[in-house]
């Protein structure tokens, strides 16, 4: 079974208005005048660049405190993980689970899945394309939820700042964490899911050629 891709018949979908147009080098969309591209430009390079930057910042984001709390009696530094442990210890298990999913699971899932998708697209043994396409769709939806902890810190800092009894200040970890979320969102946007299907089709063609 051979399903034609638009690119193989030199058609390109306009990324702005969604009209299909004839693709030649430098051609523009007939409807809105946007330059046509068969695939997102430099998708792999850009995705790798954002992804590696996100990996590097992921370490300080989790090691450094995201919030400092000081009162008359004690001073306390919270990292992402210790904040979750605190919520769990207070008995808010539901909320602890939500924060754990948003702040620990989602960023890790994004980084690892994007790495797998990139390696799958570039390698020869790609595997089934459909599960990988669905994985990418999941990444696009859940990625934004990691901003949760940044908002929590922002609200706490603003509420508890002007008095002597207790003081909450943001830690450097929250900056690193926010940048990780932004970088991983940029990485997800730079990746072109059509490459998953392109590589699957190429592998299929190579295998049928080898059998003949």
């Amino acid at each position, binding site marked *: 079974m051979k399903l034609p891709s*638009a690119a193989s018949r030199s058609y390109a*979908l306009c990324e702005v208005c969604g009209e*299909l147009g004839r693709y030649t080098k430098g051609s523009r969309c007939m409807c809105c005048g946007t330059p046509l591209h068969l695939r997102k430009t430099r998708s792999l390079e850009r995705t790798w660049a954002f992804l590696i930057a996100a990996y590097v910042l992921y370490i300080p984001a989790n090691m450094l405190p995201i919030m400092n709390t000081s009162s008359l009696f004690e001073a306390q530094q919270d990292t992402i993980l210790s904040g979750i442990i605190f919520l769990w210890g207070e008995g808010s298990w539901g909320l602890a689970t939500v*924060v754990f999913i948003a702040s620990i699971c989602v960023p890790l899932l994004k980084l690892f899945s994007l790495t797998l998708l990139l390696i799958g697209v570039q390698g020869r043994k790609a595997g089934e394309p*459909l599960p990988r396409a669905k994985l990418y769709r999941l990444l696009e939806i859940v990625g934004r939820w990691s901003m949760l902890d*940044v*908002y929590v810190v922002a609200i706490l800092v603003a509420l508890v700042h002007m008095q002597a009894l207790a003081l909450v200040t943001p830690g450097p970890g929250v900056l690193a964490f926010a940048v990780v979320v932004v970088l991983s969102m940029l990485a997800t946007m730079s990746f072109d899911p059509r490459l998953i299907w392109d590589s699957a089709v190429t592998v299929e063609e190579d295998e049928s050629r080898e059998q003949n």
Partner: protein
Amino acid sequence: MTDEVAHLTACPECDLLVQIVPLSHPGDVADCPRCDAVLYRADHNSIERSLALVCAALILLVLANSFPIMGLNLQGQQLETTVFGAARQLWREDMPVVAGLLLLTTVFVPLIELFALAWILAPLNAGRRPPGFVFLFKALRLVHPWAMVEVFVLGVLVALVKLSHTAEVLLGAASGCFALLMLVLAALSSVLNHRALWQSWQAAQP
């Protein structure tokens, strides 16, 4: 050549070449046969309904940013904060990037998005071409992923629970507005039909 293209479309996610089939019932969706991505949806008064939701969302957004999100009663002291107050405090604590990100994702991006949509939808609803349509549509596509009102609402909830162990916390009027805004924006993104926008733009008088 153009006739041939008119009956074809491609899946935006897997690039499969697909024949366009007219959808008869409102609410019908054409899915990609290979990867299940949404190709296009049947139009059901989407411009008029989107315009109504945009107006509602604009009012809610203004209210959400005029009132405090949360108040705190700590040893007799009354404290409260708005989104702008939170951003200002982050700025003072040497966190300009985080402050900017907070304002962008909860105030400015939704505001730009709603204004651009109102600008586009109102003339299209009246059958005229809005000036700068192509530019605004591109801008909308660019900023849309960065509106995170729904995540902020969850953040308010988490902060509420964290503080409720140490102090008496009161939810401000803005929290309710943000929660409602989240619902209206979700409804808006499910109603808004990009294909219908372009079709009515092409049909409208230039």
